[in-house]
């Protein structure tokens, strides 16, 4: 497929495992996807499906057991030179899930936000640093004066903004947002979602958005990958995925989304995903593009069925 879009991040058949070599626990089995420049890529799955592990592998907090991750065409997994390592850290930043536990309680906000600037090789004067912190804080809608306060003085939404300011100060190109709004209240969620969208427009940021709430993902993401027990089972443009979910797990997941609409909610039919509906003993599943931009994991017999579903 000739694609005019520029690939920012390529995740190429990665495998992440934990525990001893002899009895490894495979958190991510064999996952590949690309993230294009300027898009918001959603990663959806239940807890324990490996979605956070993938995010952490991209910021290089979890080592890969196999496969490769490339950022702007260059490998970033495995051993890197010190200079390259610093550059990659600067380019890829993360926003964490729980703003209540991801900020250092004993540090002032100014230090929390500026911490990335203190790393060796990135010297800037105290005055410069203060200016950068003030700018980062005002970019996320906080007052620069807040730099001298402690995190406990802020509400959940404000703390999440501090987390975002901390990620922004290094001027990253890619931000891995790991459930950035699931710990927030409904009325604050919209504020943070709008902030993320506005920052993206302003700076051309690329997001990897990890979440389990499909309604939020649908709203904010351009493309969505559904992950189940360490395998990506389906990947498509958001609207395409919601209109034509192919994999039975995706269908079950979509059927379970809570709707804020009592009549629709009571009429909704729940689909239950039973992994034993796949017969993979002989016919192994393969990751296939069934229509342009729509990938699904299945064996030959299933893929045929999926294609039929699409033509209908």
């Amino acid at each position, binding site marked *: 497929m000739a694609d005019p879009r520029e690939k920012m991040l390529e995740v190429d058949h990665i495998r992440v495992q934990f525990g001893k070599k002899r009895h490894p626990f495979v958190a991510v089995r064999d996952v590949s996807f690309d993230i294009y420049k300027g898009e918001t890529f959603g990663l959806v799955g239940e*807890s324990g499906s490996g979605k956070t592990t993938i995010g952490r592998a991209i910021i290089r907090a979890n080592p890969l057991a196999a496969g490769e991750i490339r950022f702007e065409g260059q490998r970033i997994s495995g051993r890197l030179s010190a200079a390259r390592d610093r550059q990659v850290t600067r380019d890829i930043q993360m926003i964490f899930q729980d703003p209540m536990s991801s900020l250092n309680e004993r540090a002032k906000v100014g230090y929390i936000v500026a911490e990335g600037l203190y790393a060796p090789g990135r010297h800037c004067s105290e005055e410069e640093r203060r200016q950068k912190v003030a700018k980062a804080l005002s970019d996320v809608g906080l007052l620069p004066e807040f730099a001298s306060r402690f995190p406990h003085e802020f509400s959940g939404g404000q703390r999440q903004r501090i987390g975002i300011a901390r990620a922004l100060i290094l001027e990253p190109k890619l931000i891995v947002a790991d459930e950035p709004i699931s710990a927030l209240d409904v009325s604050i969620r919209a504020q943070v979602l709008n902030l993320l969208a506005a920052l993206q427009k302003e700076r051309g940021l690329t997001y990897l958005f990890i979440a389990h709430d499909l309604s939020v993902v649908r709203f904010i993401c351009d493309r969505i990958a559904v992950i189940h027990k360490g395998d990506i089972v389906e990947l498509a443009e958001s609207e395409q995925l919601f209109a034509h979910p192919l994999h039975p797990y995706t269908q079950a997941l979509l059927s379970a989304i809570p709707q804020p609409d009592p009549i629709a909610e009571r009429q909704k039919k729940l689909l239950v995903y039973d992994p034993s509906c796949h017969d993979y003993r002989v016919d192994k599943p393969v990751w296939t593009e069934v229509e342009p931009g729509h990938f699904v994991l299945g064996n030959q017999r299933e893929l045929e069925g999926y294609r039929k579903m699409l033509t209908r």
Partner: protein
Amino acid sequence: METQQSEVLLSIRDLHFKFTLRGQVLHAIRGISLDVMRGESLAIVGESGSGKSVLVKTLMGLNDQNGFIESGQILYGGRDLATLHTDAEWQSIRGREIAMVLQDPMTSLNPLKTIGWQIREAVELHQNLHGEAARKAACEMLAEVGISDPERRYKQYPHEFSGGMRQRVVIAIAMACRPKILICDEPTTALDVTIQAQILGLIKEMQKKYDLTTIYITHDLGVVANVADRIAVMYAGDIVEIGRCEEVFYDPRHPYTWALLSSLPQLGVKGQPLYAIQGTPPNLFHEVKGDAFAPRNPQALKIDFVKRPPMLAVSPTHSARTWLLDPRAPKVEPPEHIRALRERGRALRQQGEVTSHG
């Protein structure tokens, strides 16, 4: 929904609840009156800090030591629960009459005891069974909440269960007490969507089977739409709107309810900013003047800042605490999303009538 649910099981009358904290007083519940009907499922919706958890904990006497009921009554079964003080007095209510399912099943089970032991404890206390009979009852309870192979599971510890299974166990413990009211405090927030739907289904099943009255506390409006007969919307320690599920969803009247519904991503248009409520909830250490939501409401009336609005009725089952319902109030149009919801509600109702008649 049906007219048979008219019997009041529990009645809260003008309840004020306060906490003392480092010399300051936090007014957590500011004059709530609420009737819970027998057999209904009531959902209390609100943000964190709105006082919804404090309210239900008051019903079981589980609030922290620095909290106290300043005034008001909680009438249940001919008694005023607001007058109970010691744990011994509360024991006749806790579990036996009102039981609770907490948010996080990881923390509400004892990790050092087997699942069987924990259910059996409730069975022995509340069903007066002992020895083999108690064990059997506990196993039955496990099977009832949908745990397969209960005999084997009985001997296992909480860490051997998944999150959804643990929540089932918590429900089993609560139901083993044979309560009349089951309070579910964010029962599914810690769970995944697919599991969430199953747990809600289980609670509904239990409700039917044991003729339970359920009170849900949640901030997830999707969950509310699924389970609730009636909805109470809480803001800053007060109920701002209460009504039947369809009334609150399709014809909300309080500006806070409008804002809450408008900010849902399900109703947003992709690429456009979502409606966001500006500002933060009021600090309850200070006395709240007028309508608590007024400072965040761009369309607030002048009187909203001065005088607390009374609870005004929209219909016999639906009322809201806002001056907008006063006949003297100017006409304030609800935001666009809400008008769309109203239309949708009307369309669905007509459709429903057609199908029910046809």
